[in-house]
């Protein structure tokens, strides 16, 4: 079984998609010869040509809007938005057009566009390069939103996203691009269902839900907690819309405590949605209020202080202490 980075796994997933599906194509800024600013599309233009790996003008609304048109013509465009903070010029096309096309045509039109967005902080970058805007999209019906946390998932989830008949926003945890892992390129195994959450670690005292870049942090926090005698269950959500509430509910019924961690600000975020649903589904099983560990209600801070902004092991353990002490 080959070992590769998340970036390479997405690259291989895209290569497999382009080989398999002649209607699939990649579009984005600098994705051709350069291979994208993170080299996720490295080498693909050489292999598939510039009609299928398209260097676009520098215009995000243009990328998404023309991708919609290509999809209406029967193509499967995979768009790369260079950085999270640059998706907003395309926000109108995504929310008013892409998300609604299938519904407003009574199912006569499909627009299976995939939008890849490197997201999240922790790379010491400049303004607009470290954001986590997933909740803004999750609030929009018609979109599917996923985020892999490891190479194997990345390899399969990107292919499944392209195969989906619905538009998918594929959030790539950019600070984990170089995280290596084994990838079974023959069988997806547990990754067979794009929208299924995975229990990565069994535990009995509390459940930690995370996705994308914070999954390794949650696992590390669970290891640290174990040294203190606390058994944490860790769930990798994988899919942000829809959310696999069944897996989370089942876990919380067992542990009685839930902590949700994401880099995005907690207010109006995915964690709040999970907290509300779980309080409906497992209220009598809860030993403590559901807690969130996330970003503050502020513009993403400057690089020199981002470590104090981003949820880390200690922030998760602090929430765990509060939950256990309740």
């Amino acid at each position, binding site marked *: 079984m080959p070992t590769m980075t998340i970036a390479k796994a997405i690259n291989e997933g895209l290569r497999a998609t382009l080989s398999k599906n002649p209607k699939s194509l990649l579009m984005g800024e600098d994705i051709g010869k350069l291979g994208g600013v993170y080299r996720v599309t490295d080498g693909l233009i050489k292999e598939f040509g510039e009609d299928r790996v398209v*260097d676009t003008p520098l215009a995000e609304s243009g990328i998404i809007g023309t991708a919609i048109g290509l999809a*209406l013509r029967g193509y499967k465009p995979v768009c790369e938005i260079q950085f999270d903070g640059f998706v907003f010029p395309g926000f109108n096309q995504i929310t008013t057009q892409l998300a609604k096309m*299938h519904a407003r045509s009574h199912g006569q039109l499909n627009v299976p566009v995939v939008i890849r967005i490197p997201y999240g902080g922790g790379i010491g970058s400049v303004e607009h390069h470290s954001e986590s805007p997933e909740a803004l999209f999750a609030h929009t019906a018609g979109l599917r939103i996923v985020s892999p946390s490891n190479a194997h998932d990345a390899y399969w989830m990107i292919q499944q996203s392209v195969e989906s008949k619905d538009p998918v926003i594929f959030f790539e945890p950019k600070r984990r691009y170089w995280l290596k892992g084994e990838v079974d390129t023959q069988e997806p195994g547990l990754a067979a269902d794009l929208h299924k959450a995975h229990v990565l670690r069994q535990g009995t005292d509390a459940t930690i839900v995370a996705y994308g870049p914070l999954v390794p942090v949650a696992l590390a926090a669970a290891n640290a907690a174990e040294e203190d005698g606390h058994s944490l269950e860790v769930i990798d959500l994988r899919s942000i819309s829809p959310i696999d509430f069944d897996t989370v509910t089942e876990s919380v019924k067992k542990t009685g405590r839930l902590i949700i961690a994401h880099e995005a600000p907690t207010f109006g975020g995915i964690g709040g949605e999970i907290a509300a649903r779980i309080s409906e589904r497992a209220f009598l099983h809860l030993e403590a209020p559901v807690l969130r560990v996330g970003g503050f209600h502020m513009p993403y801070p400057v690089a020199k202080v981002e470590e104090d902004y981003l949820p880390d092991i200690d922030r998760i353990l602090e929430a765990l202490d509060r939950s256990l002490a309740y």
Partner: protein
Amino acid sequence: MGSTQLPAPGLEGMQADRQIVGDEPSTEMVQLLGPDGKLGADPVFSDYAKRLEPEQLRGFYADMAKIRRFDQEATALQRQGELALWVPLTGQEAAQIGSGRATQPQDYIFPTYREHGVALTRNVDLAELLRQFRGITNGGWDPNENNFHLYTLVLAAQTLHAVGYAMGIQRDQKAAQDQGGSKDAGKAAVVAYFGDGASSEGDVHESMVFASSYKAPVVFFCQNNHYAISVPSSVQTRVPLANRAKGYGFPGIRVDGNDVIAVHAVTEWALEHAREGNGPVLIEAYTYRVGAHTTADDPTKYRLKEEETSWRDKDPLERLETYLRAEGLADDDFFAKVKADGDELASYIRRTTLELKAPEIRASFENVYAEAHPLVAEELAWFEEYSAGFEGDEEEEAN
């Protein structure tokens, strides 16, 4: 694979752009049939006009009369409370019928929301246009049946869809040729309709950049009807909109939008240009929205009656009628038949609209996603259970 295709330095087709001379904004425009109903000449486009058979010319008139009558009926239906809103097109018949009739079945059209005349030329059942305005659908027809996309209400968003669709046509053509098809296999073009107001939207700019870079087979058809609701086109642009094409590196043509013959000629030329792989064209059809923006608008607040009157003198139907009669191409019987057909259409529109049944909210759960979605399923299940709690209440009330 070569490098990204760029427009040739000579900008082929620019001979049709001679209405734009030098750096000075020009108001010169292509006109063949003047307001007096007399046919003039144009070095490029007269050849296209000469191809028109009398039957086609009569057809133009019949279409324009039909869509105007349709517009009146829809307006009446709105005034009577049967439609929530109506978006009248009166005054723009020539721009829409002339351009729509220049398209071929394999072409694909992306309208804004006032293109009822274009819909007619694409054989869309006009009754279906009213469904959206009665509040029973956000679509109304199957776009793939006549290659006529749904109306788009977020201005200019569809111009990008049009360019993307045209990029798809390019790839399909290449694939067809790679598989041994003829040079003409799969030739088609896309028309993106928008207005002077929408021309200020960033998506129009981006769509023109993309279309130009990839030489996409798309015709940008801008109906400059002089107003974006109340704001005059002078606030959107200080130069004729057609001039903007030059900045993107493709031909731009300003045409008298009330001259159906010229509009048809110019659009045919542009579509041929696009289908032949020469890239996009911008057409600015210079016209006037004689009525209100919508039935919720009040033009008396922002323009003078005299201005409206001066445009009524340039009426697209009257000038064609004058021409057809003068040339002996149509007689009283023809015009009487056109009127009768219009009344029949109006009665059909009225009948079908009044028969339209409101859908159930349940239908709104159906196509949020193309594939099964647990949240939608859960909410629908809840709604069914909730609704079941009211069963019997209606009977009780009725009793």
